[in-house]
C-alpha cells in the first residue's frame, strides 16, 4: 500500500496524489510535504548521494512506523538523488487517511524521521566552483526526537 521510491527523475505531485485515492472512496484527506531546493548563498546545485539498499530499507522502516502509529489508507515517499537545481523538488511525502489529523501528523512524522533516519547526504555546489557537504542540524534531531 505504501509507495517508496528513490530516483533521479523529477516526480509528478498531482499524479502521485491522485494515485492514493484512485478507485476508492474511503480516503478523507491526503496531507503532503514537498521539499524544494533553495538557492541559499549563491547555491548552483545540490548533489544528493545515498546508500542504495539501505535507503529503501530505512524508508520502509519509517513508513512501517507511521502505519503503526496512525490509521493510514496509504502513503508515498519519493526522494530524488543526483544533481538537483534550485527550485526543483527533492522529496515528496504524502499521507492519506480517513481523517485529517492522522494524515497531517503522519506526514510531519515521516519527513521528520526521514531527515535523520535515512542515509542521504547533500553536497552544495556554488556558482564560483566551490563545493561543500551539508552538515547535519541539531534542529532536525530535535524535530525527529519529539515524536518519541
Amino acid at each position, binding site marked *: 500500500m505504501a509507495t517508496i521510491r528513490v530516483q533521479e527523475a523529477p516526480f509528478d505531485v498531482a499524479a502521485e496524489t491522485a494515485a492514493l485515492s484512485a478507485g476508492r472512496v474511503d480516503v478523507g484527506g491526503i496531507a503532503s510535504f514537498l521539499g524544494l531546493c533553495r538557492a541559499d548563498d549563491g547555491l548552483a546545485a545540490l548533489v544528493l548521494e545515498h546508500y542504495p539498499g539501505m535507503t529503501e530499507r530505512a524508508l520502509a522502516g519509517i513508513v512501517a512506523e507511521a502505519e503503526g502509529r496512525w490509521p493510514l489508507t496509504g502513503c508515498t515517499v519519493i526522494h530524488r538523488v543526483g544533481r538537483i537545481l534550485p527550485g526543483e523538488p*527533492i522529496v515528496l511525502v504524502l499521507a492519506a487517511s480517513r481523517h485529517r489529523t492522522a494524515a497531517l501528523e503522519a506526514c510531519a512524522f515521516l519527513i521528520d524521521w526521514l*531527515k*535523520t533516519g535515512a*542515509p*542521504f547526504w547533500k553536497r552544495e555546489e556554488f556558482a564560483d566552483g566551490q563545493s561543500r557537504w551539508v552538515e547535519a542540524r541539531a534542529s532536525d534531531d530535535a524535530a525527529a526526537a519529539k515524536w518519541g
Partner: protein
Amino acid sequence: MEVLYFAWVRQKVGVGSERVSPPPAVTDIGGLMDWLSSRSAGHAEAFAHGKQIRAAVNQEFCTRDHPVRVGDEVAFFPPVTGG
C-alpha cells in the same frame, strides 16, 4: 568483509567500497575504525574525524560497540542530511 564509504568519508578514503580481512582482534565497529585508519593516509584522515562518523552493519545504523563479523556489510558515513 565489505566496507562501504559515503559522502566526505568516501572522498577522504578515496574509494567507495573495499573488501577487507581484519585480524581476529577486530571484533566491533570501534576496533574496525582503528584498524582501517592504518590502511592509508586517506583512511587515517577520514577516521581522524571519528566522532563525526556514523556506521551501519548489514544496512542497519549501529553504535561503536556493535560486533562485526566475517561476511558483514559495514558502512561508514557522516550524519545524514536528506529530506
